[in-house]
């Protein structure tokens, strides 16, 4: 199966491993990720005001390009996914936004949200299937207690993202189980890590990180997995001493599939 792929700016820089392991694992699972020929940074946070048009255009352009290629668009970074998905859903629902965007970009074929955009975890769950993942595992994480960290952007707003149950998600736990490990549930798995506020007030971000990390530790987690480079930053750089270590889910996937050391 072929997919369009939107890596986003952070996966090209600070989070290169997240990207590399995502590509290696997809290839091992028979999914061909083809990076969009041209894309710009999506802006990282979705502008919520109705009159913000220009700030949403780079996301719209990526969506249009996936529509033209005729393939489902896959994202990995939670933030990119939130921006692209919300822009697409708003294009479907908000006529004023749709008209302005089409007038501004003037695409050959008008765009009304036809692209399908899914997160890599949705590709694993809905397209490849966790059973198929399980069959390809060569290095099982059997016995390892791993906690999922969803954060906020994958899940919310729940009606728009339609990713999983926003209050009781399970896709990452199912992923953890598929690589042989034991998923650990804890209260803070879908509460925010502090996000960009780390640049405004580090103490606030440290407080958020501690709340999450303490909650995972108390539940017996030996490791936490995330999909987002900013979650990764907040849960490591803003973590208290002796906190549970955090990994990208794609790294564990690549390791489980035995492709971690492959040179792409």
């Amino acid at each position: 199966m072929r997919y369009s792929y939107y890596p986003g700016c952070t996966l090209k820089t600070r989070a290169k491993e997240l990207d590399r392991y995502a590509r290696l694992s997809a290839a091992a699972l028979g999914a061909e990720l083809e990076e969009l020929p041209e894309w710009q940074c999506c802006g990282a946070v979705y502008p919520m005001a109705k009159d913000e048009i220009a700030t949403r255009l780079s996301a719209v352009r990526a969506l249009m390009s996936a529509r033209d290629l005729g393939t489902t668009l896959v994202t990995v970074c939670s933030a990119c996914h939130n921006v692209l998905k919300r822009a697409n859903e708003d294009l479907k629902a908000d006529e004023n936004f749709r008209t302005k965007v089409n007038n501004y970009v003037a695409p050959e074929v008008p765009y009304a949200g036809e692209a399908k955009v899914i997160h890599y975890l949705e590709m694993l769950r809905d397209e490849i299937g966790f059973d198929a993942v399980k069959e390809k595992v060569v290095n099982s994480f059997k016995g390892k207690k791993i906690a999922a960290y969803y954060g906020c952007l994958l899940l919310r707003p729940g009606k728009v993202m339609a990713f999983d149950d926003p209050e009781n998600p399970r896709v990452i736990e199912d992923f953890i189980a598929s690589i042989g490990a034991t998923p650990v549930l804890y209260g803070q798995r879908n509460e925010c890590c502090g996000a960009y506020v780390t640049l405004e007030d580090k103490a606030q971000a440290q407080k958020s990180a501690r709340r999450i990390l303490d909650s995972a530790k108390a539940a017996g987690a030996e490791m936490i997995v995330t999909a987002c480079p900013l979650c990764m930053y907040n849960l490591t750089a803003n973590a208290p001493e002796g906190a549970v270590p955090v990994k990208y889910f794609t790294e564990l996937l690549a390791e489980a599939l035995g492709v971690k050391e492959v040179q792409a």
Partner: protein
Amino acid sequence: MSGHVNLKDTVLEISGVNPRKCMQCGKCSGTCPAYGEMEYHPHQFVTMVDRGQIEKLMASPSLYRCLACMACLERCPRGVEPAKLVEAVRLLVIRQQGQNHMTGDDIPEKLDPELPQQAIVAALRKYGK
């Protein structure tokens, strides 16, 4: 006084929020991870916008402590979406000439080698124009 009315209208228009739907249950504030850092909590934003106290909100550091995590928006039983009000009021401030809360010039001293690009992009989007 007419100035207040205009500000309120702008906030309601760009946010798309109807504060009248709020029943003051406080669930949004109860779930807000920035509760301790915000002078005005999400349910207060809703009431204050409804009362037209926009200038008070515009002067509050609370605008820069909201994480846009959408917990308040997700968990409000009345679909009020307080996060959109916080964003709209913040935009009223930073869209004014010279009122950016953070600019590219502020970034270098805040950089650390692990910081992901998206944090910088996000902060500049949220705190400036």
